[in-house]
């Protein structure tokens, strides 16, 4: 059985994984770059090892250094979290070669699902519907025209080698097809070192709905229902929820079965996600499989009542799943907001910096998965996500009301965050009605920039606070006394009870 796990990640996901390890009585090993000595995952872990300089490719993406730390610490397993090396087949293989259990699927599953065209072919063979389009890498422009003639416009050109919007082009007419195709291929080559692209029918009002699956080493595969992830900005998910407002029980069963089939097609092991694109009239198509834990996994955990990281570890230990499909039920509704250190009013420019003050939202039905603390400096080298904020309610309206409440009481200063942007989403009628597609943010961009009103009195209070603070600072310019200076190493707690005697 696994006794010590190295978490090959940082930030909130590293802390989240370590929490489950601790609950299982498993030792935890953190790795950190030079920029992360003071990061919470280093403080939280039982052990911690430096794995290199700040840039990711020299530390969190450096397989040799991570394996080195694992050996040094005697860890018998590695949890990759998400991002970084979590979908890196070479890393999974390397772990296996050195006798350290990689908590996730083997290199075969990662590779198969990592290449979009191979994944599409595999899904077609397994009876999972895919978006109409090419099933092979497009190199021939004539072939492209043929495919488009068959499936009709609009179509989407996508890079075979990766995602994130790179190498993607929406084409609505024949005259744009070839120029767009060439641009997409050149962009794909720059981004992924591979100019292979493929063409898919473009779904006009798409919903992004994904299914969580768990697969053990004994061939048991279950799904843990869907997550609705259509609220996206630049192909990055912003808000996720479960159940999906679009879903019905029949469709859920059917898509769940297809998700299980997709996982079985690659002899999957561990936790994974099958992403589907769903049209307004409830046609669904396989989009891709993420062969790792997802950022949005907590909404599933809350509604289904399963700790997905514990399940990953149990599976890695060779245990059979402790539940069957029919044992799993959805209870209530959960919503997750991702909070980023970015400025929504300034084109979402990232905003690293020092956390001066933080008040976490707490209480009934609120889960806060974060990693920053007062005085912590968010480094500029990594992802700007500060935390995941999850609320649960008996009903969707209750979960929304609770999210509004949680966002209200979440205070963080020092860095600019997306909190107020998320608050505005909670007030948009189509979100409240649960009628939205992946175009939601685009379609509501004006409303999402409208700020709440702060009347003259509210504005005056802001003036007054700044003014009073300024006056107090002026008064303190006089050089402080000897004892005060000594005390300045400690926070000023308003009243000094203990006179320092030296």
């Amino acid at each position: 059985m696994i006794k010590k796990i190295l978490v090959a990640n940082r930030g909130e996901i590293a802390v989240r994984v370590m929490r489950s390890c601790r609950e299982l009585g498993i030792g935890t090993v953190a790795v950190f770059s030079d920029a992360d000595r003071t990061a919470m995952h280093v403080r939280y872990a039982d052990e911690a090892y430096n794995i290199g300089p700040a840039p990711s490719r020299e530390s969190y993406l450096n397989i040799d250094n991570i394996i080195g730390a694992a050996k040094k610490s005697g860890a018998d397993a590695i949890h990759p979290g998400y991002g970084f090396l979590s979908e890196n087949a070479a890393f999974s293989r390397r772990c296996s070669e050195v006798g350290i259990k990689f908590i996730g699927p083997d290199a075969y599953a990662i590779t198969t699902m990592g290449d979009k065209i191979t994944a599409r072919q595999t899904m077609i063979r397994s009876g999972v519907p895919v978006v109409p389009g090419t099933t092979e890498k497009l190199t021939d422009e004539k072939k492209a025209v043929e495919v488009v003639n068959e499936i009709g416009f609009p179509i989407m050109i996508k890079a075979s080698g990766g995602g994130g919007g790179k190498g993607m082009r929406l084409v609505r007419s024949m005259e744009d097809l070839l120029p767009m195709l060439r641009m997409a291929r050149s962009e794909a080559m720059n981004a992924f070192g591979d100019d292979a692209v493929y063409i898919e029918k473009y779904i006009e009002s798409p919903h992004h709905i994904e299914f969580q699956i768990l697969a053990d080493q004994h061939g048991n595969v279950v799904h843990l229902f869907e997550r609705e992830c259509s609220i996206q900005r630049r192909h990055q998910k912003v808000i996720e929820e479960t159940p999906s407002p679009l879903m019905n029980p029949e469709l859920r069963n059917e898509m769940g079965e297809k998700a299980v089939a997709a996982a079985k097609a690659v002899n999957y092991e561990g936790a994974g996600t099958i992403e589907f694109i769903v049209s307004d009239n409830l046609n669904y198509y396989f989009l891709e499989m993420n062969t790792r834990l997802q950022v949005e996994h907590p909404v599933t955990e809350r509604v289904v009542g399963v700790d997905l990281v514990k399940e990953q570890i149990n599976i890695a230990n060779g245990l059979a799943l402790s539940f069957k499909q029919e044992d799993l039920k959805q209870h209530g509704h959960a919503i997750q907001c991702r909070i980023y250190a970015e400025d929504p009013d300034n084109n979402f420019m990232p905003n690293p910096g020092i956390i001066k003050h933080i008040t976490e939202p707490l209480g009934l039905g609120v889960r806060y998965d974060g990693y920053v603390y007062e005085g912590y400096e968010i480094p500029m080298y990594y992802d700007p996500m500060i935390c995941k904020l999850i609320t649960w309610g008996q009903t969707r309206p209750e979960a929304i009301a609770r999210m509004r409440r949680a966002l209200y009481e979440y205070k963080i200063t020092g860095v600019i965050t997306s909190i107020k942007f998320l608050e505005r989403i909670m007030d948009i009628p189509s979100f409240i009605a649960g009628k939205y597609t992946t175009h939601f943010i685009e379609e509501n961009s004006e409303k999402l920039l409208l700020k709440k009103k702060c009347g003259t009195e509210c504005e005056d209070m802001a003036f007054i606070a700044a003014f009073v603070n300024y006056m107090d600072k002026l008064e303190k310019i006089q050089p402080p006394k000897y004892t005060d200076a000594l005390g300045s190493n400690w926070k000023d707690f308003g009243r000094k009870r203990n006179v320092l005697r030296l």
Partner: protein
Amino acid sequence: MSYEISNGNRTAKIDLLNRVGNKALIAVDGHKYDIDIVEVEAGVYSILFNGESYNIELIESESSKKYIVNTFAKTFNIEVIDAESKYISNRNKGAGLEGANQIASPMPGKVVRIPVSVGEQVTAGQTLIVVEAMKMQSEFKSTGDKIIREILVKEGDIVNAHQVMLKLE
């Protein structure tokens, strides 16, 4: 003690008329507020006025006179204006806008590209410098037809928030 205070859109006259302990009488543009104000945490003020409870968070920005102020509803950039600020402000009016002729990064980051050189003639909208932070690249562009006067950083440099990187004329 009378000061001016501005949030960009509005400049108000502010006077501290009285202050004893938590209680203060402050006039903003002549409107008197009888308030109870306490700094409950460093930089966080609780104000009670007419029973209403306000939480106001301050972050000092570029100077000790400039604040980013969070109220429940809105975030303001507020500046306390004293004689010195007025002098600087007046001088800048005479000399043209200081801010428009320099490029500063609003956040810490790494300079990834400087596609211009000193003495070069640039046009409005032309990219002058690219800074990367948190896996995102931000391009800073010229606001008009100008000449690059000075480049204070080089590619690969780490810059702090508000650090001036480029000067134009």
